[in-house]
């Protein structure tokens, strides 16, 4: 116990020096994480720990192994422990009302990370930190429109899992962005299920259908994994990815930076794993000055280009992706 307090104290001091007196006065925050099902999720956990350390916050993470009952148990235990705030990345959208009411009764603010919940009573949580997936698609589309200029460009699209909200929204945003440019058109669009193998398969069929790939000007993939599969297919067809065909995708995982550094991809839009950072800041402001944050904090959807690819790869490869 004493050692822990001491450590927390040292971390706090270090955090204060580093962050220029951010002033997170000994906060303890419980984070109910879904699990570690994907590389992105693992990176989110790692980054959350790093961000907590920066601010001198004692972060308790409970991995729910994909089970809602474990998340509810974790939230109850956090309440019993008397933490200062609870972060929740909900595994499903429904069924949180009663446990969040308990948190509310105990006056512990709850911040939703990365996903939102279905509830009639939105006073049950302080704020939700998520990315805007429509906006991500728009950033990708705008980059392509700018890069292509006035040339005609036939685009093929690798969609995410049918019916999943990121797939729907990333398509919507991209469509909106290129709608204003009549020289850009999506000629083919099919699902690659967010996976590398399916991305490669679908790209192979696109290449066959479009004159051996010579008619394709750009590939838009709803995530980097499918794009990496597409790169493979393009290479096998004897074309140069990144030069003969422009490639833009979303997520910003380390492997796409590797591809960009090698000149085989052109751009990626980041779905940041740092959801906890803005959430910590919101909680600190709320605790210290009573500042009530907006109900939705949108994370930045930053565009990355090959010039910073090598550095970004180095920075990300140890985050657990």
């Amino acid at each position, binding site marked *: *116990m004493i050692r822990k307090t001491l450590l927390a104290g040292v971390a706090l001091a270090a955090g204060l020096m580093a962050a220029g007196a951010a002033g997170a006065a000994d906060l303890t925050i*419980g984070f109910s994480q879904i699990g570690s099902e994907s590389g992105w999720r693992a990176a989110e956990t790692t980054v959350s720990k790093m961000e907590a350390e920066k601010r001198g916050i*004692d*972060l*308790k*993470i*409970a*991995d*729910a*192994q994909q*089970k*809602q*009952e*474990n998340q*509810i*148990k*974790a939230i*109850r*235990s*956090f*309440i*019993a*422990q*008397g933490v200062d705030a609870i972060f929740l990345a909900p595994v*499903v*959208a*429904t*069924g949180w*009302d*009663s446990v969040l009411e*308990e948190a509310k009764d*105990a006056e512990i603010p709850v911040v939703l990370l990365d996903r939102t919940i*279905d509830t009639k009573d939105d006073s049950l949580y302080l704020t939700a930190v998520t990315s805007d997936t429509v906006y991500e698609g728009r950033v990708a589309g705008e980059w392509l429109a700018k890069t292509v200029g006035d040339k005609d460009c036939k685009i093929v699209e690798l969609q995410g899992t049918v019916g999943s909200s990121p797939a729907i929204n990333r398509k919507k945003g991209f469509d909106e962005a290129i709608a204003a440019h009549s020289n850009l058109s999506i000629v083919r669009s099919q699902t690659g299920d967010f996976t590398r193998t399916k991305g490669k398969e679908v790209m192979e069929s696109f290449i066959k259908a479009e004159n051996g790939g010579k008619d394709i000007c750009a590939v838009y993939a709803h995530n980097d994994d499918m794009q990496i599969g597409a790169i493979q297919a393009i290479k096998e067809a004897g074309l140069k990815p990144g030069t003969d065909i422009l490639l833009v995708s979303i997520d910003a995982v380390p492997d796409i930076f590797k591809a960009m550094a090698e000149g085989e991809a052109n751009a990626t839009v980041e779905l940041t794993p740092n959801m906890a950072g803005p959430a910590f800041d919101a909680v600190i402001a709320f605790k210290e000055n009573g500042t009530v944050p907006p109900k939705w904090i949108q994370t930045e959807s930053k565009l990355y280009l090959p010039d910073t690819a090598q550095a970004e790869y180095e920075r990300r490869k140890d985050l657990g992706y």
Partner: protein
Amino acid sequence: MNPRTLPLLATLGVFLLAYALCALQFPAMLSTRVVANLLTDNAFLGIVAVGMTFVILSGGIDLSVGSVIAFTGVFLAVTIRAGLDPVAGFILVLAITTAFGAVMGAMIHYLETPPFIVTLAGMFLARGVCFLMTTDSIPIDHPVYDTLTGLSWRIPSGGRLSLIGGVMVLVFIAGIVLAHRTRFGTAVYGLGGNRTSAELMGVPVARTTILIYALSSGLAGLAGIVFSLYTSAGYSLAATGVELDTIAAVVIGGTLLTGGVGTVAGTFLGVMIQGLIQTYVIFDGTLSSWWTKIVIGGLLFAFIVFQRGLVHMAARRREAARLATGMPVVSPAG
């Protein structure tokens, strides 16, 4: 010392020791809130574990309970959305799950099939039917649910004993009475101890087997209702692996996997030990949540070794008694 109470005492000892160690590190774990949470959060596990205790006492196993919980939740969510009254839904689903268990019991007895295979089929069947009804998580939004989830008894200093926690305690009390004070209970112990001699002594084997599995599935149905109150939703993927957690709780609670020996009260402690480990991991906040499984695994090994030792000792004592009196001993193992 009576070898029947020794496993129970061992479990009690482990529980008290574990709680003491936890409380030493985190004094907050002594709060009534944590105690109430242990009851509420493990309510569905506890209820289904009572049924599993009877199954294992009879020398069987029931792998279908997790799927039956999910089925119950999805069934309720779908029918309530379609306009059925929740109370009618509860009665209907309890009837369905109990009948489902009775059919499994009948197959085990009349077709002379191992319970493992029959209930494995039941597990796939119930889980499959969930996905047939829906693949989404369906919220349950009904005034009856709001009332039931809101019912709780506030213990001074912050704890809340919820309705579902209370239901679990009642099920355990009923289970203890059923096991130790009724003919059915005696028949279950007899069946698990030595089936042939139980039959010879006039235990109605067919009826008892069917009742055991009907009870287990029916309680899984009740656990499903409790689970749906707990999450206010029905989800096809809910409660995966709960059958294994349940078996672990029963064995840690001192019931022999070979049947014939064990107590319902021990199972309660087994459930609480699991909940306690989980709570500790969350309180610590830096441990991987898989430590819960690791510790449970270790405890299971320890208890199995301990139980084999007891069985061995009992056999030797009987042997010594036989030699001393020169009479053959026919009493069942354990």
